[in-house]
């Protein structure tokens, strides 16, 4: 509960229309994708709602956020930031926590076309940013979660794998200058932005050690160490001619595929051949996208309905270990060069060009450019969530996929998770194949308790597999319980992480539920 005087202090900052403690509003922040999983993980019934915040507040500026955070400090309230807000880690995790909904901070502050970066506020979406930067022939990285989510959240606070990561990297590595409200309410500006003379966004490191080091890690601190109010993210060249011509009516859109863009589905007979192919394609530095998605996932990505997806699935039984590739070019010459390399590599790696056998609509190109392919996954059961997520080499990612399949099949047999024959895998390469991550999108029914429990049990087995087989740390190792489980197996990192929390937020004013808790609380 929030007391009247506390509420009034917050109301004074943003005005009465921008704060609420009405249950009807609060409930809409408690309901989340996968909240039911979190409830089960925390030994609660599998409800679609997690905790209700004590209040929701809508600041419009960094200064207002600083004031809000200071009020929280004054009254011992906690806060949890929220931008586009997809996923249970956006929920508050403890009572007396206010949700700071950053929706009103929705500006693209700057697009530096020469130095290839954009500065964005929390509620700019990936699609919005892409639409604006492509006017200058540029592109932005978008996470697999889709174009509707916040690039700021992805860059500062979440794991950031994406379908185009081969050429647009990992969100956490695309960060330049950062504006950050610490749990104390102080404003921390990273890198050149923090200097008094001509502050600028082009770097977020230094002087001296980079404070990005305490900012996010691999998976993001989920507002557990403050609120990011602006971030400069690196931009990338748009992969083809930056044209976007789309006609027709939903869902039958027709996309005029811009010049010099091409999808390939290249089929490999086994994991080894796929491993080699992923490596070789990336070594030649030609891809816009380069990933492995299982047969089912490919069928889902290119289908507009369940019926279509299943009809594809029954047709394409010859797809074994398909590599999905997209190349793009600025000129005819570049396009021809890349196509020639692809042809050579298909031959060299023993692949079969399956592209023409799959019905790839022109709009799938738009969806690929806009990072919307992953969203097709929801067509099937209406809900999925991934397990695993570790990132290192292509070989490790493939090994993870191989080792996971029998475990997944076991849980499919038990009946909790939907049957994808244990094959549901998305494995993406990063930065020209220097890294790869693997996750197992796993379909379940969020409305059926036994399915929710089934997913949780399966996910736990996945986490155990990663520990036992040394497959990296999964995405969802966050919060005290998980950290204290994994930490002792990983250099006791949780001790150091907790020290950071304690140094910057001893009283846990920034909701620690999806980060780590300071034990210094008085």
């Amino acid at each position, binding site marked *: 509960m929030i007391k009247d005087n506390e509420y009034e202090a917050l109301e004074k900052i943003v005005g009465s*229309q*921008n704060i*609420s403690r*009405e*249950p*009807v*509003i609060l*409930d*809409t*922040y408690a*309901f989340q*994708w996968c909240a039911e999983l979190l409830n089960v993980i925390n030994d609660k019934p599998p409800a*679609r709602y997690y905790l209700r915040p004590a209040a*929701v507040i*809508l600041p419009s500026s960094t200064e207002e956020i600083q004031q809000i955070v200071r009020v929280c400090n004054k009254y011992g309230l906690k806060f949890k930031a929220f931008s*586009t*807000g*997809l996923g249970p880690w956006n929920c508050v995790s403890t009572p007396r926590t206010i949700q700071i*909904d950053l*929706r009103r901070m929705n500006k*693209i502050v700057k697009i530096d076309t020469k130095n290839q970066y954009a500065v964005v506020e929390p509620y700019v*979406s990936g*699609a*919005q*940013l*892409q*639409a604006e930067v492509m006017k200058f022939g540029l592109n932005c990285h978008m996470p697999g979660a*889709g174009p*509707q989510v916040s690039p700021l959240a992805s860059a500062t606070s979440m794991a950031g794998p994406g379908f185009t990561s081969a050429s647009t990297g990992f969100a956490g590595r695309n960060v330049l200058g950062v504006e950050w409200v610490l749990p104390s309410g102080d404003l921390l500006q990273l890198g050149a932005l923090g200097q008094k003379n001509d502050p600028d966004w082009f770097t977020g490191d230094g002087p001296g050690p980079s404070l990005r080091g305490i900012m996010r890690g691999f998976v993001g601190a989920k507002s557990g160490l403050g609120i990011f109010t602006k971030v400069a993210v690196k931009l990338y060249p748009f992969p083809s001619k930056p044209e*976007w011509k*789309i006609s027709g*009516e*939903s*869902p039958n*859109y027709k*996309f005029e595929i811009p010049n010099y863009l091409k999808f390939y589905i290249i089929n490999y007979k086994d994991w080894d051949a796929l491993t080699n192919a992923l490596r070789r394609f990336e070594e030649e530095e030609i891809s816009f996208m380069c990933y492995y998605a299982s047969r089912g996932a490919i069928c889902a990505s290119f289908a507009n*309905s*369940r*019926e279509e997806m*299943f009809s594809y699935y029954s047709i394409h039984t010859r797809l074994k270990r398909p590599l999905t590739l997209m190349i793009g070019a600025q000129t005819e010459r570049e396009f021809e060069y890349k196509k020639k390399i692809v042809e050579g590599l298909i031959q060299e790696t023993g692949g079969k060009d399956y592209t023409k056998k799959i019905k790839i609509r022109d*709009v799938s190109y738009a969806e690929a450019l*806009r990072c*919307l392919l992953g*969203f*097709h996954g*929801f*067509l*099937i*059961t*209406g*809900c999925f969530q991934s397990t695993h997520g570790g990132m290192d080499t292509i070989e490790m990612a493939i090994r993870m996929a191989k080792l996971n399949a029998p475990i997944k099949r076991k849980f499919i047999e038990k009946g909790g*998770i*939907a*049957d994808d024959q244990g094959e549901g895998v998305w494995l993406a390469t990063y930065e020209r194949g220097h890294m790869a991550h693997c996750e197992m999108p796993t*379909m*379940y*029914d*969020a*409305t*059926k308790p036994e399915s929710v429990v089934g997913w949780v049990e399966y996910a736990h087995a996945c986490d155990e597999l990663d520990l036992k087989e040394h497959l990296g740390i999964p995405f969802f190792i966050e919060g005290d319980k998980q950290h204290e489980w994994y930490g002792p197996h990983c250099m006791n990192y949780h001790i150091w992480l907790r020290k950071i929390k304690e140094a910057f937020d001893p009283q846990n004013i920034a909701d620690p539920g999806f980060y780590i808790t300071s034990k210094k609380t008085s």
Partner: protein
Amino acid sequence: MTLELKKLADYKDIMERCIRCSMCKWIPQVQIKSWKYAQVCPSIDEYNFHAYSGGGRMIIALSLLTERIGYSEELLNIVYRCTACGACAVSCKYLNDLEPLEVIEALRKKIVEDGEGPLPAHKKYMKLTEEVHNPYGEEPSKRLDWLPSDIKVSKNSKLAYFVGCTTSYRRKEIAIATARIFNKAGVEFQLLGEDEFCCGSPILRAGGEAQVLDLIKRNIKAFKERGIETIVTSCAGCYSTLKADYPRYVKHDFKILHTSELLEQLLKEGKLKLKKEVPLTVTYHDPCHLGRCSEPYKEWHGEIMEPIPLVRFPVPPLPLRQGTYGCYYPPRNVLKAIPGLKLVEMERIKEYAYCCGAGGGVKAAFPDFALKTAGRRLEEAIDTGADTLVSCCPFCATNLQDAIKANNAPIKFYDLTELVLKAMED
């Protein structure tokens, strides 16, 4: 989704399956062409809390249904601060199959059934409609006050011009233009006059299902008694109500046409000739109820199968109203046929057009919100470089013109029929 009328409880499964992805707040993702015109929901654009989105209202409905929350003034305000424009549903269903608009409508019906709503402004017009058959409280005898003496009306025509309350009493210029065009093009039509009752749209949008059912029955009876086979309306609200909503309550076989459809047909048949130059740069606003909301509901008799455990599969496939078959091209084709007129498009058009802000009972209950929304739409229109904004709905016309006036906006507004008439005049 289907012809079948459902109660809120019937949507529980849909509400529980919302993934809170917020697609409902944006135009379909592949249509986004700028930062400025990426969003689609007037309600959340104005009020910002998630509760004010399509998905947010589904959560509220679920919370109410499962008694996590009870009725409150705030709840009613949130539920009714929505123009029921259906844009959320189009965006949601691009890659999913939930029904936020239907849930909102079912929620409003429940509120009314429970005696908790609608809001006083809605109650007022519902009462007036009951008393004088129009929500404005105007005298039924004045319904044809707009009719100029030189207009030829054919009492026995099988084609009726269903003028609609707003056109009859508030946007007479549309009725006049429509009637004159019909006369010039040789289209015989009858008018119902005092016998024309409200189509029921404003009542239905506010959740007054019981009242609307009486109206529907009465209107269908009146149409039949007059030997009407084709109903033409120049009002988008009447159009979608007659075409999409009526069959859910009472099946009928009247042909429902919007004036733009008839005009397009007349052009094709050479019965309508547009010769006079109208040198305007025009942008066209798709009324929600002429566009995405006019798509008829379809019958579905099937069941949800689980061929693979946990994978739900409606057999046969469930028909989805995705805005695919709204009336988008007839108005545009008519505009394109006007000599000297240049049509430029806004970014948000057709099934993902931004609402003018008037619908769903908002203009009556929250006029400021309605005006602000229209202001946003005007900005988009002005950004096209157009000097003229055109639409096909008297309700949109009123709200957009109110906004032009309030903002002193550098743009003129015309109904499609007014421009057609200009192009026909000697």
